[in-house]
């Protein structure tokens, strides 16, 4: 059958990559059915109100392969990913749930390592895992272990992270090096030996977010560029807010070794998943102060102002290249790397 038909009738790997097909699946199938204004905001976490308390609620599933990689493992990722999704809604992450689907025959020792890693990550993030579930399915029905975590947090007083507040002339900041996580995960798959400096950046970002919000409670936007990378996240924000963006390629922090892996394998660091980075949008007048605050935190030492929000062209992101040219920075179409997080 042709590709168009295949895409319409079957789930493709690309539907899970965080790019355009993922988007279409979510908006045209899932959001359409579940229908409610909270879901329509399509941020990483949902903002809900219960008896006057302003809370954030989120969930994520983890299928990364290999399960252990330089700098982390599926368990650490499962905790940090959900903690970060709460943090970027402007919330203090409080409680997590952990659901496991295990394959018959999975090594008990490996499971113990993963669970311990989750406990350590939770302690680091200052959250508690308070409920969960474990299912076992027959050999072959899942690949080893799949983990789902959901989380709840309380939104900081006076903070309103909302894509509708993104406006022209605001500054865009990235908290550090791009592409490290994806490269750390995929290097094993492709027979590349990496220098010690490349490890997954997997980390809980709530303490960095706290510093940012203390410096500027009117921070406009926070996102963590996971699947689909920085380019996808910027495109999502631009399109939801109806604004343009101009990014300076020379300001984007990428380690030479990460660039080398990308050159060899034909990837683009701007589309690679990060698990410990933040995109921050603030008003221009306070951007340098926020940058300094970020740089004083261990997870933000290499933060840079990478560009600004613009009026035109609405919904799109432009990149000023190293030679002074300019090009469109599109959203990811298709799949770059399966099972990266």
């Amino acid at each position, binding site marked *: *059958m*042709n*590709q*168009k*038909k*295949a*895409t319409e009738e*079957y789930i*493709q790997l690309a539907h899970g990559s965080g790019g*355009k*097909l993922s988007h279409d699946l979510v908006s045209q199938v899932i959001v359409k059915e579940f229908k409610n204004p909270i879901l329509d905001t399509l941020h990483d976490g949902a903002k809900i109100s219960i008896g006057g308390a302003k809370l954030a609620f989120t969930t994520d599933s983890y299928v990364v392969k290999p399960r252990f990689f330089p700098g982390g493992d599926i368990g650490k990722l499962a905790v940090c990913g959900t903690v970060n999704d709460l943090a970027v809604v402007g919330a203090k992450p409080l409680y997590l749930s952990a659901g496991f689907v295990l394959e018959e025959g999975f090594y008990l020792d490996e499971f113990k390592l993963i669970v311990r890693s989750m406990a350590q990550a939770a302690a680091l993030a200052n959250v508690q895992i308070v409920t969960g579930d474990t299912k076992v399915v027959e050999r072959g029905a899942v690949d080893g272990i799949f983990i789902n975590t959901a989380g709840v947090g309380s939104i900081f007083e006076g903070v309103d992270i909302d894509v509708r507040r993104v406006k022209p002339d605001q500054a865009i900041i990235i908290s550090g090096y791009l592409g490290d996580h994806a490269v750390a995960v995929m290097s094993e798959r*492709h027979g590349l030996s990496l220098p010690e400096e490349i490890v997954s950046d997997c980390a809980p970002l709530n303490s960095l977010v706290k510093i940012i919000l203390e410096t500027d409670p009117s921070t406009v936007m926070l996102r963590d560029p996971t699947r689909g990378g920085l380019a996808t996240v910027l495109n999502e924000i631009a399109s939801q807010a109806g604004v*343009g963006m*101009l990014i300076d390629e*020379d300001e984007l922090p990428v380690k030479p070794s990460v660039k080398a892996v990308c050159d060899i*394998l*034909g990837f683009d660091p701007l589309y690679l998943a990060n698990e410990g980075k933040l995109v921050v949008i603030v008003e221009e007048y306070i951007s340098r102060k926020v940058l300094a605050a970020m740089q004083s935190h261990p997870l933000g030492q290499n933060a840079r102002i990478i560009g600004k929000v*613009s009026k*035109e*062209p609405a919904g*799109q992101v*432009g*990149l*000023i*290249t*190293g*030679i*002074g*040219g*300019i*090009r*469109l920075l*599109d959203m990811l*179409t*298709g799949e770059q790397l399966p099972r990266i997080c």
Partner: protein
Amino acid sequence: MNMKDSAYTKRAAGLLTEGISRLGAKPMRIMEVCGTHTMSIFKAGIRRILPETIDLVSGPGCPVCVTANDYLDAAVAYARLPESIIATFGDMLKIPGSHSSLLAEKTAGADIRVVYSPMDALALAAENSGKQVIFLAVGFETTAPLVAATILAAKKGGVSNLYFLTAHKLVPPALAALLKNPLQSKKIDGFLLPGHVCAITGTKAFEFLSEEFKIPAVVTGFEPLDILEGIYLLVKEIAAQECRLLNQYSRVVKENGNKDACRMMAEVFRPAPSNWRGLGVICHSGLVLKEEYGDFDALSSLPVELFASVEPAGCRCGDVLTGSIRPPECPLFGNKCLPEHPVGSCMVSTEGACAAWYKYQAGRWQF
């Protein structure tokens, strides 16, 4: 080794761009032969800073795009063979055949593996002795020697379950055919030549452009500054009404190329007529396996039932590949033909002109 300081890069780029604008005052059309150049030019944002007088058109330099549907259809047929593993470069996955694509076959359960080197296919054959591994050998002179070397290694190792579905093509005959083509509607004033093809063949393989056709050409590298320099040298040549072959990429490309690579290609392959989308059948423009290596040739040693191929209705890839139209001028561009569901290969190949134009939205994007 490359002076990568960003201030230097911007300064050098500025000077080269000014030089191009100064010399490129009258309209001229330059063909970027290689699909990788098309992509790199967009990626560096070069189209936006060139003067309007310079028309950069894409050429037939996308080996996947210039190969007709029957190749992909054969690949699909092999994918459906029981106990077979297809080993392929990643960008072949989405290329549409007459009725299916490798990605669709993979979704439906075929064993298709993306590899980065033909040597990976050799490794797959060794690890899966009970199965047939078929490598999709597509590419120009940059890739053919790699396949040749792999076949020589396979023969030496006595490997008997590795096959190659070959569609290698040669660039110089295609350019000659392009220039002799009576249907060629747009006059080309100069060529940017593919640096890595030339690294193998040597610059002398392209001297005919200067000697026979009196058209200037510059062998160009792929870094943004390489390309700007290549364009500058070419524009200077055109403006001076000269027609020399120049070598911007001299740090990699020599006059005689890589003799070891050429020798291996000649050992394993022989030239044959080949069908190029947009250009028709061109003599001596393709490579087929010599008889001594026939055991590795998929079509003769592992025959499979092939079904009739149809070219996609309304597809203008052929015209895009000869530089006769720009991708947005194809009526299917951006509506019926999209990266998610392409009609022709130019929209999904990593070196496809349509893919580049769609992804970077024509390059002259205003804001």
